[in-house]
């Protein structure tokens, strides 16, 4: 063999080990989607803390590796596989909840308890989407696609508008759909300012959008300390499946409110939640390999996810209108849209839509009450679905 032939053979061998050899159109599409995520995060500021890690993770997950080299999150023994362990086993979501608890102020909720019910009403999106996913089937050619109750439950929780809860439940009930569900949940959370306002305007009159609500009362420190302990006992007695998520949420909140564990609360709400968010977002992105992700069922999950967000928003707004029939002190129905637990985005959307009608109307703090109640509500819904469907 001449030197020239040796070199061409070696180059051909090397070509086979590069990513170009295994790159498929699906990978290119996924890398383009990742580019959109990163663009939306950087240029439009749509959930940058989530979309940048997820977007870059998608790029990493769609670079094909050569045979025999363990690189992806699905390859046994790869570094990414170890990082993905936290997603697969549902370890990261409770840690995110710990951080959320340590940064959440429940005062607005404690000062206006009836708004908590709006957080429950918005969970109608979870259960209606569950039923929808159970009933729908998608046929193309000779293949028919339908979802099992476990998969339907994991899809339904997208309507809870809570990324960590969606990941936690899908890791338990439908690990094969985890990537699609997580991406759908976080995409729609980022698109809350686009999805919610038309529904809010459609379901309310101008007079209703102009309603001004009474300022919140001041909540004592003792109340703020008692709340996480007793609320945890109430919620988990009703739905023990929510112990992990609700437990971490209220544990984080107790650390914040008791004022004697400031160092722990500070770590939970800053460094720890940042590290876990990076790992969670990156690993979820890296799990969206085109060969696994670009499937008809992913499209169906995205459609059902969009419906669940719309139904959840409508559920909150309509329930606020229903409450106005019974309460003397009127609620601005826009606040109901914050019952979906995309904290604090949906509360910000309520403030924005309210101020478009009346620039002097400040609904943000009122909207935070159903918003944080929505976090509790979606965790309870996840607990119910897990305990019933994992049997």
């Amino acid at each position, binding site marked *: 063999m001449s030197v020239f032939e040796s070199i061409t053979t070696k180059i051909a061998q090397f070509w086979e080990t590069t990513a170009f050899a295994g790159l498929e159109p699906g990978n290119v599409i996924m890398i383009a989607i990742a580019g959109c995520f990163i663009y939306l995060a950087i240029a439009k500021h749509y959930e940058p803390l989530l979309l940048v890690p997820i977007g870059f993770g998608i790029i990493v997950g769609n670079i094909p590796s050569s045979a025999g080299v363990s690189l992806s999150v699905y390859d046994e023994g790869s570094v990414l596989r170890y990082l993905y362990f936290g997603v697969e086993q549902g370890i990261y979501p409770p840690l995110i909840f710990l951080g959320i608890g340590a940064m959440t102020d429940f005062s607005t*909720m*404690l000062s206006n*308890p*009836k708004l*908590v*019910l709006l*957080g*429950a*009403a918005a*969970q*109608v999106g*979870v*259960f*209606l989407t*569950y*039923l929808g996913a*159970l*009933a*729908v*089937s*998608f*046929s*193309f050619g000779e293949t028919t696609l*339908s979802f099992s*109750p476990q998969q339907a439950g994991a899809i339904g929780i997208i309507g809870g508008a809570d990324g960590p809860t969606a990941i936690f439940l899908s890791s338990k009930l439908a690990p094969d759909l985890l990537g699609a569900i997580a991406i759908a949940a976080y995409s729609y959370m980022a698109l809350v300012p686009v999805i919610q306002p038309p529904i809010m305007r459609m379901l309310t009159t101008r007079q209703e959008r102009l309603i001004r609500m009474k300022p919140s009362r001041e909540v*004592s420190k*003792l*109340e703020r300390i*008692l*709340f996480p302990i*007793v*609320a945890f006992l*109430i*919620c988990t007695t*009703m*739905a023990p499946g929510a112990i992990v998520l609700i437990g971490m949420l209220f544990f984080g909140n107790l650390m914040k409110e008791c*004022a004697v564990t400031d160092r722990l609360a500070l770590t939970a709400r800053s460094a720890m939640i940042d590290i876990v968010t990076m790992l969670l977002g990156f690993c979820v992105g890296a799990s969206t390999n085109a060969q696994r992700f670009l499937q*008809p069922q992913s499209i169906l999950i995205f459609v059902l996810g969009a419906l669940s967000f719309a139904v959840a928003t409508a559920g909150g707004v309509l329930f606020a209108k229903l409450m106005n029939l019974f309460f003397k002190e009127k609620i601005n129905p826009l606040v109901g849209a914050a019952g979906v637990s995309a904290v604090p985005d949906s509360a910000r959307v309520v403030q924005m839509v309210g101020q478009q009608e009346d620039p002097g109307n400040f609904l943000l703090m009122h909207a935070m009450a159903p918003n944080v*109640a929505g976090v*509790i*509500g979606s965790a*309870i*819904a996840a607990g*119910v*679905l897990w305990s*019933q*469907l994992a049997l």
Partner: protein
Amino acid sequence: MPTIEFNLEPLTGEHGLALAVTGMLVVFLALALVVTFITVLPRIASWLSRAHPSPAPAMPVEDEQLPEELLVVIAAAVAEVVRHPHRIVHIRTPGDMSWSLEARLQHHQSHKIPHRDR
């Protein structure tokens, strides 16, 4: 051509409508109990406060120089910064130090190194 169909049969089973309705009821019931608890929480807190009273707050000290509104604002600012039980014992107005501040300013300015062209 892909088609989407709806089949209502899975909804009639144990994991269908029954689970969805039960789930929604559990969420509502749990949060309704939370609402009930939050409603009575101020009473529980006030009962507990009465049972274990906190130390009486320090009596305000008469100050002839500062208006009451200014004292309230200063006390609020200190409470926001300190965030622990505290007692303000003395408020020093800038006027007390004006002579010494002026002297210190002049002293520092006298040490200014003049710029030299090389």
